[in-house]
C-alpha cells in the first residue's frame, strides 16, 4: 500500500531554519553578491558580471588546487577506510581490553586541529622532532619544509593518525550490532574468515561505513588548519589545498570577487558529492529495511 507523505512536520524545524539563516544563508548570499562584483574596499562595489567565474574556470591555480584536493581526499580515504575496518575487526569484543581500546582510539579525535598540526610540525622537525630526527639518523632525507614527497607524506600520515579512529569506532559499533546467529549460521556452513567478512560483516556495516566515508570525505575536502600549521601550503604550492588557497586569495590578497566565485564552485562540488553520498546511504537503508 502506498502511504501519502505528510509534509506539515517541516514547520517544526522553523526555529532551526531561522538560526541557520543567520549563520549560513546570509553569509552565503553575501558571497554570491561578492562573486559578481569588484571592490577596492570601503564598501564600494562595482558590477563585474560573470568575469570572476570565467577567470576562475580558466585559472590554472584553482584547477591545480582542486587536483591536489581530490588527490588528498582519495589517498586518505583509501588508507583510512580499509585500515579502520581492519582495526575494528581486530579489536577485543568485550571486557577490560575492549574499553581500553575504545578510550585509546578516541584520544586522537579529542585533540583540536591546530594542536594536531603543531604536534606533527614539531614531531617531524629534523633538529628537535622525534620522527624527523630518527629518519635523519637512519639516513633518510626527510624535510617536510623543502621536499614535496616528505610534505605530502607528513600531512597524509597526520590525517590518518588523527581520523582513522573515527572510521574504526563507527565500524566497530556496526560490527557489535550483528546478532550472533549470523556467525553461528556461518560456522555451520563452514564459511571461511574471508567469506564471513564478505557476506556477513561487510554488508551489515555498510550503512555506518558510508556515514564514516561521507564524514571523512567532507572533513578532508574542507581541511585547512592541520596542513596549514604543518606546511603552510608549501613547499611552493605543493600542499596548498582548496581551502588554504581560498583563504590566501580572500584574506591574503583581498581578492573578494574571485575568492567568492571560487567558494561558490567549491560549495557546489561539496553539495553534489554529499548529495550523492546521502542518496546512496538512504537507498542502502531502505534496501536493508525491505
Amino acid at each position, binding site marked *: 500500500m502506498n502511504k501519502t*507523505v505528510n509534509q506539515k512536520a517541516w514547520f517544526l524545524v522553523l526555529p532551526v531554519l531561522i538560526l541557520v539563516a543567520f549563520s549560513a544563508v546570509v553569509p552565503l548570499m*553575501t558571497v554570491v553578491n*561578492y562573486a559578481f562584483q569588484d571592490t577596492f574596499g570601503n564598501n564600494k562595489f562595482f*558590477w563585474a558580471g560573470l568575469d570572476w567565474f*570565467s577567470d576562475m574556470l580558466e585559472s590554472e591555480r584553482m584547477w591545480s588546487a582542486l587536483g591536489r584536493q581530490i588527490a588528498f581526499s582519495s589517498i586518505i580515504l583509501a588508507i583510512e577506510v580499509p585500515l579502520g575496518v581492519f582495526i575494528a575487526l581486530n579489536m577485543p569484543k568485550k571486557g577490560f581490553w575492549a574499553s581500553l581500546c575504545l578510550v585509546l582510539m578516541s584520544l586522537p579525535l579529542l585533540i583540536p586541529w591546530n594542536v594536531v598540526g603543531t604536534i606533527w610540525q614539531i614531531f617531524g622537525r629534523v633538529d628537535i622532532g622525534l620522527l624527523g630526527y630518527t629518519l635523519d639518523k637512519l639516513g633518510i632525507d626527510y624535510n617536510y619544509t623543502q621536499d614535496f614527497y616528505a610534505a605530502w607524506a607528513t600531512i597524509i600520515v597526520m590525517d590518518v593518525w588523527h581520523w582513522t579512529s573515527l572510521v574504526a569506532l563507527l565500524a566497530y559499533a556496526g560490527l557489535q550490532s550483528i546478532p550472533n546467529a549470523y556467525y553461528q549460521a556461518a560456522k555451520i556452513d563452514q564459511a571461511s574468515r574471508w567469506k564471513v567478512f564478505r557476506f556477513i560483516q561487510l554488508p551489515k556495516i555498510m550503512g555506518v561505513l558510508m556515514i564514516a566515508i561521507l564524514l571523512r570525505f567532507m572533513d578532508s575536502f574542507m581541511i585547512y588548519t592541520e596542513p596549514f600549521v604543518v606546511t603552510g601550503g608549501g613547499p611552493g604550492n605543493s600542499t596548498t589545498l582548496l581551502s588554504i588557497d581560498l583563504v590566501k586569495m580572500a584574506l591574503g590578497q583581498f581578492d573578494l570577487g574571485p575568492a567568492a566565485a571560487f567558494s561558490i564552485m567549491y560549495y557546489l562540488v561539496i*553539495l553534489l558529492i554529499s*548529495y550523492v553520498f546521502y542518496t546512496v546511504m538512504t537507498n542502502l537503508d531502505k534496501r536493508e529495511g525491505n
Partner: protein
Amino acid sequence: MEWMAWTWPTAIFFLIIAATLIIFTILAIKFPETPRMGVLRMETTRGDRLFIALLGSAFVNLAWLGLLSAPQWGALIVSFFYAVAVFRWV
C-alpha cells in the same frame, strides 16, 4: 545591509529561488505525494527533483561559461530543458 553588497540581478535570483521553495512547500502541503522511482533507480519526491534540477543547472551554467564562448542565456535554455527532463523522468 550595505556590507552584503546587494545588486538587482542577485536579489532577483534569490527571490526566484525563495519563491520556488515557497511554491513547492505549498504544493507539498496541498497535494501530498508518494515518492516515485525514476531513471536513476532511486525514489524521488518533487522536492528531490527540484534540488537535482537546481544543482544540475548550476553545473550546466558553469560548464557553458567555461567551455563555450556563447552568450550565457544559452545555458539557461539548456538548464530549462534539463529541469523539464528531471521532473519528467527522474
